């Protein structure tokens, strides 16, 4: 598989850093090279948080990507900030639960996900981040879905173990949605 990178952005608390970690964990388990670079600037409560995950078969050079191939975006401020930066031909997964504006990128594959509805139906409204991650994995096939599910099980242990099943279910619902989308490179 070729190298790629995805920028995941949203409000702090929307789970983008965790979604990125699960992706990095899954790709690493598949023997791939990965980097996970969070924004750690002076942010305020309720501010934006983002992470760039790079996947490759060679050691990752620069982990900081100004023009990523993919964007998973949870809120409008992040779409306005990062939407224009996605490479032409890229993939943008848009959280339609919170974003009602046009993405304005006819040169990219745009995947609309009502993340809260998908998560609620799968049994865990708080797993909206995994609906988004699932849609991206379904569309891009960047990592095997089973590897993400294994990473979810490894992440949700102890007191959090009871959430593993619904997180996996939400991821799979997003995955099914993403698989219906044809990505035109």
């Amino acid at each position, binding site marked *: 598989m070729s190298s790629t990178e995805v920028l995941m952005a949203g409000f702090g608390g929307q789970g983008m*850093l*965790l979604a990125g*970690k699960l992706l*990095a*964990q899954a790709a*690493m*388990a598949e023997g791939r*090279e*990965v*980097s*996970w*670079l*969070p924004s*750690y*600037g*002076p942010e305020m409560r309720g501010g934006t948080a983002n992470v760039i995950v790079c996947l490759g078969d060679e*050691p*990752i*050079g*620069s*982990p*900081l*990507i*100004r023009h990523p191939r993919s964007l998973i975006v949870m809120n409008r401020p992040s779409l306005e900030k990062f939407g224009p930066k996605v490479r032409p031909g890229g993939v943008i997964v848009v959280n339609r639960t919170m974003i009602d504006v046009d993405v304005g990128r006819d040169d990219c594959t745009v995947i609309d996900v009502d993340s809260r509805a998908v998560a609620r139906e799968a049994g865990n409204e708080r797993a909206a981040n995994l609906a988004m991650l699932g849609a991206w994995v379904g569309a891009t096939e960047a990592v095997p879905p089973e590897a993400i599910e294994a*990473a979810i099980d*490894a*992440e949700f242990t102890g007191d959090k173990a009871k959430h593993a099943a619904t997180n996996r279910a939400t991821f799979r619902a997003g995955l099914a949605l993403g698989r219906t989308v044809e990505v035109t490179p």
Partner: protein
Amino acid sequence: MTTTTAPTTSEASTGAPPKLLMKGNEALAEAAIRAGCLHFFGYPITPQTEVPEYLVKRLPEVGGVFVQAESEVAAVNMVFGAAGVGVKCLTSSSSPGISLMAEGMSYIAACELPCVFINIMRAGPGLGGILPAQSDYHQATRGHGHGDYQVLVLAPSSVQEAADLMLLAFELAEKYRNPVMVCADGMIGQMMEPVVFHAEGAGPPMADNDWALTGCEGRERRIVNSLYLAPEELHAHNLALKEKYDRAARDEPRWELYGATEGYDLLVVSFGTMARIVKSAIDELTDEGLRVALFRPITLNPFPYAACRDAMDALPRDGKVLDVEMSMGQLITDVKLAAAGSREIAFMGTAGGVVPTPDEVAARIREELGAG
């Protein structure tokens, strides 16, 4: 995101050490324990706070000691004390905090005590900002406290290398009875990458020695002291320190040569985070048919002068050298010393937490080669 004290493994262990996904700060902290360090004294500061955050949970699990000091000045003097009684010890800070520790470093080096400092550099001067920078290069390799002393400085370029150099740092500290600094930046500290620890569990304690203050019952007392009022004695002490630093300069330089190593028209010199961005640029330029190499010092002190000069001498007569750093002309001091006037050194630098992209570096290299 919370740090985990027991990082999840990539797969069930099959005998080989597991591959873990960790932040650079966490990998440095875990590697210190693997090196046998069970004593940490520090004070929080962004972007290195995951080091103490990790150790405050992990050290008690292995019978270690964690103290959050009331300030950096207190922390460095606690390190002074712990090093004096012969235990492997560590402190960690970021740029402004390292400045506060400067006096203590001079005393520790003067007393020839082994210990390790982590500096996760942020942008300066003054309080500056919290984003990555390399602007403490001069401070690490020449600056901090007063007097004729040196600190050995190691500069990782990835999370794996951060872990590996942490083991080396404790080894060199003990070998030379001297402070060693692992000097990274906010990007390496905050980033997660796969890391494998080849050493299992907590490492061995400091070897038996004839200098640690362990209680003198039944033997001659030992003295840890940096005051020499007689000029001849202080002169001799400085000569002994110099002999030690000369030995390190001869035996310890480490570096990497990357890219078109069999023949290149431009040599970039860069370290740490900046060097891996340069690698991406070089990969892009190699695909275009340009011949570019990277010389990456891994030891900033001792700087690998001879190897750097050899790398320059392998250039054709009209070849170029480009220094690339996230500071305003600090690494270039050593590149010029290596060149010793034999070549012009071009400079590309950023500051303030601005991290150049591979495209920006590649554009500058094309310009230098007249290949724009």
